[in-house]
């Protein structure tokens, strides 16, 4: 996983609440057995008009947001299906950071597994960033994970909270499975202990 340290990038606004992962990437793109190449499915149904042509009012179709790496959006982003294809598609499109007042749990977790930083800011602050991203051409933000801060071009700074363990993993781009495997002795000890209490859960380990 690619580490996330600081990111300065173009901001794209998605002014909708409760964006579910069925919208982030619809089902027809879930038949893949790969993690890559999912950008064409990103917000697929919202990119097109009824006749199938690109909707010029949708941000992804606007030249000014091409190359955006930061997405600013509304409450409860990523609700619904657990599909990790949602962060994969965002990443494939170039997004490394999503800023919203709140996220759905599974999506939030999935971001960290893929080097994407989900930033929770107060609703009022997100509103200001959204306004700027909509009105100021070429609007960029700097996101500093170490300092846990988002800075605007005018130097206004918004601090965000993040779980220290997750921060560390993301900052260093750690392999989380590798980390867990370092605790192998503890896992084995747990299994041995638990097997005595609840042997019916371990038909494969009982001799």
């Amino acid at each position, binding site marked *: 996983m690619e580490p996330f340290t600081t990111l300065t990038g173009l901001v794209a606004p998605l002014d909708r609440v409760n964006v579910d992962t*069925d919208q982030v990437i619809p089902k027809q793109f879930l038949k893949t057995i790969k993690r890559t190449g999912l950008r064409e499915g990103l917000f697929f149904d919202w990119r097109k008009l009824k006749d199938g042509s690109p909707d010029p009012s949708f941000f992804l179709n606007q030249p000014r947001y091409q190359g955006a790496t930061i997405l600013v959006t509304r409450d409860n982003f990523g609700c619904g299906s657990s599909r990790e294809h949602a962060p994969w598609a965002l990443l494939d499109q170039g997004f490394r950071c999503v800023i919203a007042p709140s996220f759905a749990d599974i999506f939030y977790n999935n971001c960290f597994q893929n080097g994407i930083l989900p930033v929770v800011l107060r609703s009022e602050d997100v509103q200001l960033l959204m306004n700027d991203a909509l009105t100021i051409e070429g609007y960029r933000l700097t996101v500093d994970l170490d300092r846990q801060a988002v800075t605007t071009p005018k130097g206004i700074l918004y601090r965000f909270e993040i779980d220290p363990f997750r921060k560390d993993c993301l900052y260093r781009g750690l392999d989380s499975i590798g980390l867990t495997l370092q605790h192998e002795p503890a896992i084995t000890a747990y299994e041995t202990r638990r097997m005595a209490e609840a042997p*019916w859960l371990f038909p494969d380990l009982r001799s």
Partner: protein
Amino acid sequence: MAGKTLFDKIWDSHVVRSEPDGTTLLYIDRQLVHEVTSPQAFEGLKLAGRRPRRPAATLAVPDHNVPTTDRRLGIADHVSALQIQTLEDNCKDVGITLFNMSDIRQGIVHVIGPEQGFTLPGTTIVCGDSHTSTHGAFGALAFGIGTSEVEHVLATQCLVQKRPMTMEIRVDGTLSDRCSAKDIILAIIGKIGTAGGTGYVIEYTGSAIKALSMEGRMTLCNMSIEGGARAGMVAPDEKTIAYIKGRPLAPKGELFDRAVAVWHSLQTDPDARYDATITLQAELIAPQVSWGTSPGMVIGVDQAVPDPRSMPDEKLKHATERALEYMGLSPNMPITDIAVDKVFIGSCTNSRIEDLRLAASFAKGKKVATTVHAMVVPGSGLIKQQAEAEGLDRVFREAGFEWREAGCSMCLAMNADVLKPGERCASTSNRNFEGRQGAGGRTHLVSPAMAVAAAIEGHFVDIRHWS
């Protein structure tokens, strides 16, 4: 020391180790795997040169992509076929049990777990699927995870977690005649909203919950995720134990008796505290119908479509307008005036034998309206077999419903069962998102009884007064 909730008891018995900041390595007893969210996990394992730690703790089944028509014809869509084949190859490679498409035990992953006795009280259960919450009906801590975490569990049998908060949702009283678990959970989501449960594990309590069958509790817990909670649970009781007894993967003999003794102890202590409590009165719950594009946009069948003009909150107003436009509905229209084109009875929410029996009892001797296309998709091959043994398939067929093979089908329309743009469907599934059942399709979430009545009348009716 304060007592423990059901959740606390399960969590505490699964902690492998924890850091001072609360980061916990949690042991996972059981994992279910399906074809859509697993290929990248198996690939990741292979690339890292890792093997599953306990292949026997995982059960796999293809369900999302499978055709619900004659299986002997194979899968027409070669991309779907490849995904299903990949699951079979991966499982064979590492020694994971898989029920393939021609196995009578094949079905929706959240239906077959309980059906096989793989789902047990007091366990931690995960699956790369948000409706894993279903298994909480057995007093298990069951939650959906992403593909990277699927890989993590395969490799380590553990997950790194932070302790969530607990919420009690207490439903007391007696449900009105013909109202069901589906109406309870839709009413709950209508009350707390789609993010109301974010960060919580819900325990459902109260006399109306106790009165539910295991099937009803599964319906209830299934949609916990639609309220934002990753998990929902109901404490095990005699019904739970009776359901599990004799299932193929359940413990047997002396081990079963030992397990039962432990399962009885999985009750929230009287002096335990939840972080939040919400209460509902069962008598006040009407049959529910969703009118919008999020499960929280739901209302009693005896009410009318909301009017955004009367909403003070700008964001809510905007979201409502957008939803009504997508759904092709006008404000203040009575729900019973909404006509449907399709009816879908199925999904991990409502495709179990009890759902089918109930649906058949309403369909018996009636005819599906000529304007409606209706189908019934059983949750598993075994349910289909059971239903056929009871003659339910005949009841459905004679009434004009299609009778299909088991799978997710039109719940998410990854196979050939898809709504056309603009088509309106009364569905017993769990999500009414834009395009969920097909691009441009319009979904109304309802109970099986309400779905049958809508199929026959061609529009929604109040099932309480329907003859």
